[in-house]
């Protein structure tokens, strides 16, 4: 019989009180956000696709590269343009999914101060992006190892330029993921965030590059696409600076532009989160 049991006349003893602190802490919010990210099968597929994209692009480029003796680092990190799409989706989806699916109602009922959730999402996204980026870089290096040796392309980690490129790859992709998170949390629609991100990072940069001019070059230096400069080897950076009529930031200045965009978007998202409604 599955009916409701009769109300007990004998009073049952309440369960003993749990001694641990009861409230919401940042650590718990971070753990919760990490759980949300890893509980989706699509996250795994996305990570896999991103790693594959980076490795495949690098592998394809080794065939295209004609002259030996140069550094193999630019090739290993060349997949960044393609794989950054995966990081963008990772961030945009994390930021926007709460609102699209209505999960925001339960999330912000549990954490009414709200901002810890965004902070937790940023930490978790950055951590996940770091892991995936390192894996992608490793895959790209591994995929091209044999071919690079045959073509005579060295990968010397002690060389400062190589070190910059390798570290820059990981940092750049993580930065892109955070830009995605900022966009997703701000506009709250994953498709709009994705399109805006692709436009800002890839399309606009390419368009401006092919239509050079003082205004175009200045804009290029100030858009998040400038972050890609950290992935260019010194020869290409010099060529870029020589051909530019606007400011030509160095690799790390370019990365700072990307980081500043991420910070600004996240700040805007935080403002909206704090002041507005979450439904």
């Amino acid at each position, binding site marked *: 019989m599955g*009916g409701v049991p009769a109300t007990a006349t004998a009073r*049952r003893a309440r369960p*003993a*009180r749990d001694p641990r602190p009861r409230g919401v802490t940042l650590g718990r919010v971070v753990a919760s956000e990490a759980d949300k990210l890893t509980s989706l099968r699509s996250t795994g597929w996305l990570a896999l696709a991103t790693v594959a994209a980076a490795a495949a692009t690098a592998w394809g480029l080794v065939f295209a590269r004609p002259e030996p003796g140069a550094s193999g680092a630019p090739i290993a990190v060349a997949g960044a343009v393609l794989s950054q799409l995966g990081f963008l989706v990772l961030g945009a989806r994390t930021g926007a999914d709460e609102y699209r699916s209505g999960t925001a109602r339960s999330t912000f009922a549990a954490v009414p101060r709200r901002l810890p959730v965004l902070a937790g999402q940023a930490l978790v996204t950055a951590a996940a992006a770091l892991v995936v980026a390192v894996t992608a870089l490793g895959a790209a290096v591994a995929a091209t190892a044999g071919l690079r040796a045959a073509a005579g392309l060295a990968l010397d980690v002690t060389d400062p330029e190589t070190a910059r490129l390798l570290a820059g790859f990981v940092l750049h992709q993580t930065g892109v993921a955070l830009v995605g998170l900022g966009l997703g949390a701000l506009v709250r629609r994953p498709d709009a965030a994705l399109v805006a991100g692709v436009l800002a990072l890839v399309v606009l940069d390419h368009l401006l590059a092919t239509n050079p001019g003082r205004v175009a070059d200045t804009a290029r230096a100030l858009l998040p696409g400038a972050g890609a400069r950290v992935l260019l080897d010194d020869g290409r950076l010099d060529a870029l600076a020589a051909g530019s009529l606007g400011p030509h930031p160095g690799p790390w200045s370019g990365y700072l532009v990307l980081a500043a965009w991420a910070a600004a978007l996240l700040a805007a998202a935080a403002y909206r989160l704090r002041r507005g409604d979450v439904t």
Partner: protein
Amino acid sequence: MIEVAALTKRYGPTTAVDGLTFTARAGAVTGFLGPNGAGKSTTMRVVVGLERPTSGTATVDGRRYADLPAPLRTVGVMLDARSVHPGRTAFRHLTALARTHGIGRARVDEVIGMTGLESVAGRRAGTFSLGMGQRLGIAAALLGDPGTLVLDEPVNGLDPDGVLWVRRLVRDLAAEGRAVLLSSHLMHELALCADRVVVIGRGRLLADAPVAELAADGSLEDAYLRLTAGAVEYQGRAVGEAGTTAVGGAR
């Protein structure tokens, strides 16, 4: 009239509907009862052609749903109130639906009036409350003036006024000679508006009888609970019963 004969629907290893046979006749309201996960919604989806049966048949007026020349004029369907694009206004949603069958604007206005949605017809469906969404779903079902109606939990989320309105509506439709198949979990309400009741559990038929006969000794609710005792999929437990653990924070 809806005829379901030896209908079976499997999703991989799971059998959602298992050899179900029943008829929802014209001129009567047939209630469709069963625990959560019993296969009611699956059966309804097969009847209206959204899903194909693994074996067996489900026909409306003797034909498969997909073979009907004018489906909306034969069967009015309300499966899920969330079947509307949230960016569309109620009026446009109904108009787009009406256009598929050449149904005119007059009829659209008529069903909006019948369901009491005049004041919100121009609002986007994403802003609707649960009750308003339900009414919109019922409006869509009535659009083609069909001879058969399939309604999945139509009174879900409606206020008492709305519940009474659906009861009267459904009885009037049956009195006009239409067949109505409606699923519900509100026993007392169903006892008031249904003529026959089909009870299923775990995809199988448990009872198919007039309400009066089932509720002969005791209420419909008692009869239902008796029939479905062994077929409940998700059984909750009372607080304090064996197996319940305390979560930190009891005061």
